[in-house]
């Protein structure tokens, strides 16, 4: 069973996958006539070069922690929630409604209520695909993709009609009242007389994201429900035999997943410098969550690391496209490569490493190499 030590599984395999993705990205840079080394330097500087840039990286990482956790919880139940994008948008609707129509006395209460509303709206948006998967066997991947499109339609309608203040040109809600604006990390640093993170929007919800990581860790590995989710994910028939209801677990896992994705909206509505809900607020974070979950091996610690990496990539990519003619879609390409290598071609990366450990490693020698085909 143990063909290689655990560190190789959780560190070496993702790192090799990442290297492969990086090599192909370098080829892409070359093919469009961009010096790869220059591009990487620009991206690295854009990601962590200044205090502002670092703040943006952390801001995006907060988003990706939420969406990564969302995808991971569903993955544990062997379900593929590709609808994070839509759930974030609808979660944003929930947060916006709560912040705009209720006068909150203090940001802590607004955070609590906004977070809950975002989570509930996100969960509700996945409820119908979840129900159709659980009861009718409709493919969750296709239905959640469809719900992404419907979510962006709903959002555009709400932002250009119901929630747009009269006379405003931008398709967005009104700016939230000051009490519903979360303090940024720069505000907090300011209390200690520091100018850290500059004007970047990274805010208090990064701690909510970390709390969510602890919550997911407890849920998946330390509760009965988490055990049921994992058992169902490993083998549906065995789980059924053990008396676990497939319908309930499918529903619950996806609702939690949707709630986590929805909670991302707290960061990108209440947390940004002008707190409001704008069109296309998710900006692809729902999809990046897939790459984050795969790279992080569906574990909260891995997800935090992967989210930081993708936060840096996203921010660095934005700076790169501002400085050169490379469009921001380069981030989508790298994201696709990471999904490919860590997700689908995992075996291609893993087998040679396993082979090396079998040949040179000490422990796993007992198993003959011929066991695998």
């Amino acid at each position: 069973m143990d063909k290689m030590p655990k560190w190789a599984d959780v560190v070496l395999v993702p790192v090799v996958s990442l290297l492969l993705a990086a090599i192909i990205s370098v080829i892409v840079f070359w093919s469009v006539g961009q010096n790869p080394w220059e591009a990487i330097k620009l991206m690295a500087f854009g990601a962590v070069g200044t205090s502002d840039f670092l703040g943006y990286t952390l801001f995006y990482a907060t988003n990706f922690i939420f969406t990564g956790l969302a995808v991971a919880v569903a993955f544990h139940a062997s379900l593929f929630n590709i609808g994070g994008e839509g759930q974030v948008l609808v979660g944003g609707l929930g947060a916006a409604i709560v912040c705009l129509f209720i006068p909150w006395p203090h940001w802590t209460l607004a955070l609590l209520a906004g977070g809950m509303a975002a989570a509930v709206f996100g969960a509700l948006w996945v409820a119908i695909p979840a129900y159709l998967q659980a009861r009718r066997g409709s493919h969750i991947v296709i239905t959640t993709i469809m719900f992404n499109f419907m979510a962006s339609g709903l959002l555009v309608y709400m932002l250009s009609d119901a929630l747009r203040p009269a006379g405003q040109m931008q398709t967005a809600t009104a700016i939230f009242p000051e009490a519903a604006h979360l303090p940024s990390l720069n505000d907090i640093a300011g209390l200690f007389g520091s100018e850290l993170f500059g004007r970047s929007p990274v805010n208090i919800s990064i701690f909510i994201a970390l709390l969510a990581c602890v919550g997911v860790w407890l849920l998946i590995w330390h509760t009965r429900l988490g055990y049921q989710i994992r058992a169902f994910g490993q083998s549906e028939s065995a789980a059924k035999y053990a008396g676990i209801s497939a319908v309930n677990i499918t529903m619950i896992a996806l609702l939690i997943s949707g709630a986590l994705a929805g909670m991302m909206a707290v960061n990108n509505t209440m947390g940004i410098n002008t707190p409001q809900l704008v069109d296309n607020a998710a900006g692809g974070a729902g999809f990046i969550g897939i790459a984050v979950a795969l790279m992080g091996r569906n574990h909260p610690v891995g997800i935090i690391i992967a989210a930081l990496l993708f936060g840096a990539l996203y921010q660095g990519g934005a700076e790169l496209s501002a400085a050169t003619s490379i469009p921001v879609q380069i981030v989508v390409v790298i994201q696709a490569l990471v999904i490919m290598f860590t997700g689908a071609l995992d075996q291609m990366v893993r087998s040679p490493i396993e082979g090396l450990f079998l040949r040179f490693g000490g422990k796993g020698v007992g198993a003959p190499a011929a066991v695998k085909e």
Partner: protein
Amino acid sequence: MDFFTLVQLGDASIRMAIPLLLACLAGLFSERAGIFDIGLEGKMLAAAFLSAAVSYTSGNVWVGLFAGIGISIALSIVHGLASITFRGNQLISGVAINFFAAGLTVVIAQGWFAQGGRTPSLSGAARFDGLDLPGAFTRMRDKMQASPGMQFYSEFVSGHSILVYIGLLMVPLSWFILYRTRFGLRLRAVGEAPEAVDTAGISVVGLRYSAVIICGILCGIAGAYLSTAVQAGFTKDMTANRGFIALAALIFAKWRPWYALGACLLFGLFFAIDNRFQNIQLQVVWIIVLLVGASVAMVLYAVKRERIDVIVLGGLSAVLTAIALATWMGSAGEVGLAGALFETVKVPSQLIQSLPYLFVVIVLAGFVGKAIPPRAGGEPYVKER
């Protein structure tokens, strides 16, 4: 609506249906062989870009078509590597291919042509023009004054690009390959019971790769059709989710070629209506009847079933009823509640644009008949257990 409008609608449906049909047949070959392919979208997009780019630089649309097919096959082989050779997750591989194509087409288009992620527009021999069949009218004025039969012939039958006729021919061809050849029998078998095919001494891997490559060819034609026949050039994300809708059509068609034609024509009609009638006005009473009717139907369905059905469908019908009431109250300004029933309101254009996706969900919900996928679909084949 006169007869000519109907003919035009049919004509538009065909044009909308062809890329769906080609992608749907592509998915059909792949899934019949047991390989789920969510990456139809990405392959079409990559083919759309490369065929437009190569058509532009070479000036010959056929060269472009083959380039498009080539890149689509290349991506198919990557999908094959992931899902056949390395036995990875087929859904994840497909998703990765979609993102890869979506990102790379824009990056490369910007790098090569520097026109904001699109190719220069194509003209002349770099583009597929409509074929005018013998005797057909080509000018709009002639068509409108012709007899109904002639209108049908000139507008609906004639005047399409050659790829439309190729696409339609693919239906009987696919049927023939799948149901009347030895290769087709084996291909279907490998999606149902790969171990049986293996026992008979036929290569599971070989069959699955051939299916995936056929899938690539068909997606390549679909993509090239979009950028060199429907449009004159590539634009960012121009496939507009057709790959996913094709998958829904495939399920709707229960993995059969002729049904696929029907399903895609239906979706094509849907898009054609969608494009033509952006501004739909409805009387409030009809909105209420529609929404409350759907709610009642869902409640009736749920009531005799399990608690989960009651919760979800009950909640959904409550939302729909609330929307109906809100519309009613909202339009009752000066005219009063009774008068408001006969006020007309504009259906939001976003809702109309979402209708095809809603329709896909309803189709997938399986209320239109039960669909049974190929038994070994999505599972990598392991020779020895």
